[in-house]
């Protein structure tokens, strides 16, 4: 790709291809595959010629960037000149002027410029962008843009209570209503010291006087917006050499000053900035890092919501990106290393690092053993729980059985009692029947005897002789 672009660049500038050389830069380390961006620096006989930018998989993004650069050129803002948009291997390549010089972050880091100097230069760029691209707008358009912010926050559920965000929007709206000043401007979207170049040019017409030119580049996130202040906030949040809590020590741009004087207004602007910052990152970060991004933003927004109006104005939430956080941490280490080196302690530091690594290894082994023990414990606990569960089930079953047994016993007792009663009744009835039978038999017998007697007596009565015989026999 770079070789084909080199040929096209040579053609564009009418130079033999052998005179053109290029360096290839990675245009962002935390990007998704889809938005991975390459930057080529082209040189003609070792002198800067032009810069080329292209995306791995996103021609549309580059066309938008080209249009923005075109517009910025037209407004006369301090940005590189548009050179050309060429097509190479099916990808669009944006060619722009090579801004010679170093970026402000590097200059401050190398102590070639002080922080106040760098911030002043950045402020020039900020004001240049804000004033030269300014266009009148309306309250409706402002509210419409606010609604887009709410929509992002709502979609990703960034704010626990969306009402607080709406209140922030209303606060800003009320402020701009009072000021009667609804305007839009082209907002850079990533205005950090790293994206601002300070070039020094010799002004030959005026003898040996040197002229410093401050210009910004990289317009991937630039768009027309009512929220110009996000550029100023981002400058402090994402320039590695600047610290958020130093913000109050510097003079602010005119449009940000009123915010700094009113903590409610400040926190409202900060909240809106946070959501916009999230959407910028979400547009280029890989999908798999989105959950972490959402979580981080939720935490920051939740803190901002909790402390809305309580935080002193001119403070931003401390939330360096992981890379910048590392950068700062390493800066600290580097200072230590340099001091140590001067004091001849570098070897001691080495030993310390090796000890640290060894401890880390031991800890890691212990951690592994601990994890294994933890796993076993969890397994044992699981089994125990299972046994307990079984025990519970058994106990329940036992209770049930016992209850059934009791019920059965009760039933048996009841049945027994009923049987006994029944037997008693039967017995009584039997006795009664027996008695009745006896009585009956007795009666029958009596009756029979009577009747027999009668039968026997009557004929005998009728036969006195016989009666006598009987009587005689009786005697």
């Amino acid at each position, binding site marked *: 790709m770079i070789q084909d672009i080199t040929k096209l660049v040579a053609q564009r500038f009418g130079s033999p291809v052998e005179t053109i*050389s290029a*360096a*290839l830069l990675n245009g962002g380390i935390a990007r998704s595959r889809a938005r991975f961006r390459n930057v080529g620096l082209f*040189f003609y006989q070792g002198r800067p010629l032009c810069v080329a930018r292209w995306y791995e998989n996103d021609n549309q993004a580059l066309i938008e960037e080209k249009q923005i650069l075109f517009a910025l050129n037209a407004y006369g803002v301090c940005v590189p000149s548009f050179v050309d948009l060429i097509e190479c291997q099916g990808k669009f390549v944006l060619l722009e002027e090579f801004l010679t010089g170093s970026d402000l972050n590097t200059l401050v880091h190398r102590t070639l410029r002080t922080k106040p100097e760098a911030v002043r230069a950045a402020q020039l760029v900020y004001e240049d962008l804000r004033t030269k691209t300014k266009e009148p707008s309306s309250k409706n358009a402002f509210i419409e843009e606010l609604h887009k912010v709410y929509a992002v926050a709502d979609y990703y559920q960034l704010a626990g209570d969306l009402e607080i965000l709406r209140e922030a929007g209303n606060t800003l709206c009320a402020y701009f209503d009072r000021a009667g000043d609804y305007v839009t401007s082209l907002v850079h979207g990533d205005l950090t010291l790293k994206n601002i170049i300070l070039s020094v040019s010799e002004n030959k017409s005026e003898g040996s006087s040197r002229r410093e030119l401050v210009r910004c580049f990289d317009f991937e996130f630039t768009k027309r917006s009512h929220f110009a202040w996000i550029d100023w906030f981002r400058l402090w949040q994402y320039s590695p050499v600047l610290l958020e809590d130093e913000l109050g020590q510097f003079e602010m741009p005119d449009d940000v000053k009123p915010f700094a004087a009113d903590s409610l207004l400040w926190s409202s602007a900060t909240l809106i900035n946070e959501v916009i910052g999230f959407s910028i990152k979400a547009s280029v970060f890989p*999908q798999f890092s989105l959950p972490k991004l959402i979580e981080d933003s939720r935490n920051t927004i939740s803190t901002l919501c909790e402390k809305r109006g309580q935080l002193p104005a001119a403070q931003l939430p401390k939330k360096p990106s992981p890379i910048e956080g590392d950068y700062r941490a390493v800066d600290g280490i*580097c200072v230590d290393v340099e001091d140590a080196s001067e004091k001849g302690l570098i070897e001691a530091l080495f030993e310390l690092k090796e000890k640290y690594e060894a401890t880390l290894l031991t800890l890691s082994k212990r951690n592994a053993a601990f994890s294994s023990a933890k796993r076993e414990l969890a397994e044992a606990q699981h089994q125990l729980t299972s046994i307990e569960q079984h025990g519970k089930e058994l106990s329940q079953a036992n209770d049930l059985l016992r209850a059934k047994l009791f019920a059965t016993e009760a039933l048996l007792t009841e049945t027994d009692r009923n049987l006994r009663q029944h037997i008693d009744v039967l017995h009584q009835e039997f006795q009664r029947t027996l008695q009745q039978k006896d009585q009956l038999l007795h009666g029958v017998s009596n009756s029979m005897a009577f009747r027999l007697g009668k039968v026997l007596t009557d004929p005998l009565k009728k036969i006195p002789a016989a009666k006598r015989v009987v009587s005689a026999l009786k005697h």
Partner: protein
Amino acid sequence: MLSSNSIVKLTQVVSDADSTNNQLSFLETLVDSHHLAHLQMLAPAYYVFGTRAAAKWRDISDEQMSKVAQRIHAGEPWEEVIHQQTQEKKWVHKIALSPSRSLFLDLLDYSGVRVALDLGAGWGQLSLGLATRVPQVVSVETTKERLDVIHAICAQEDKTNVSFLLGDVFDLPFREGSFDLVLLCGVYEWLGNNGTEDDVKMLQEAALKAVFHLLSPGGKVVIAIENRIGLKYLLGERDDHSKTRHISYLPYQEASAQYQHRYEQSFRARTYDQREYEASLAQTGFISPQFYLAFPDYKLPQVIIPSDQPELLRYVVENIPMPDEHDGSDGSRSFYNEVIKRVYRGINNVDVLQHLAPSFIIVAERPQ
């Protein structure tokens, strides 16, 4: 009746099977006729060749790799799966997922390249990147599990022009001149780890010879590798492979003896400096070697500069923020990061910096 979903799935399966068959057939066209009989089919997707013990580097266990492949094959987004599997190992995570890994592919000229060979394809990023740039790519790996993952990723990305072979560089079945481009990214230095006690340099040059023969006349080899006298190593940063300080820049015999004395093991992951690489390439028959300096290294390059452009290098070092250097064995930030950057600037005017870059991307050509 089949539902429309089932029809889509069925069509997909049929089309996957078709493309697999096409790729297997394509691979067969590259194989030397007397090796054809020795190709073994493994799974439906690739062939296995050779039995030599190759260096089998593993970032994560084979079991984990297999799970990754299964999940990707099942339709989960491959980046998400690898992210979940490797997020605890930040260095592996970056190596496997960062698009920077394949940045250097934009350096190469693909005109006339019909078939490219990615030897030691790792997580497959380069095979994937090549698949969008050249008509056919052959991905070779030494473990089945890695190849499974690369195959799954390519299938998900619909890269039907990638073929797969389980094999190793010392024993490849391909016909002479089969490839127009061969990539050895992070491979050359490990070639001594083949389980033998053979001379490391001899093994490396043997592999280079094998690659030379695989290339078509005019074909190019790309070697991405560390510079043994990179400034960070001179200052005391750990060697990426042996994880040992102050060893890579020593003469090999001395380095080897020290390593043996310290760890009772042979020092077999060997890197070289620019002149030594040039000599090996020339001895093998390669011509026109081009060296690109990769900062902070070839693994995740952020700045790549041709080494024969000293003015360009000077400008970049002076004006562009150079990326942070890291410990190449685990990706942690270099202890000497700030010192390295200062030295780069300090020696910027004496034209030695190109010899002290941390890594090279080397492109050399087989003569016509």
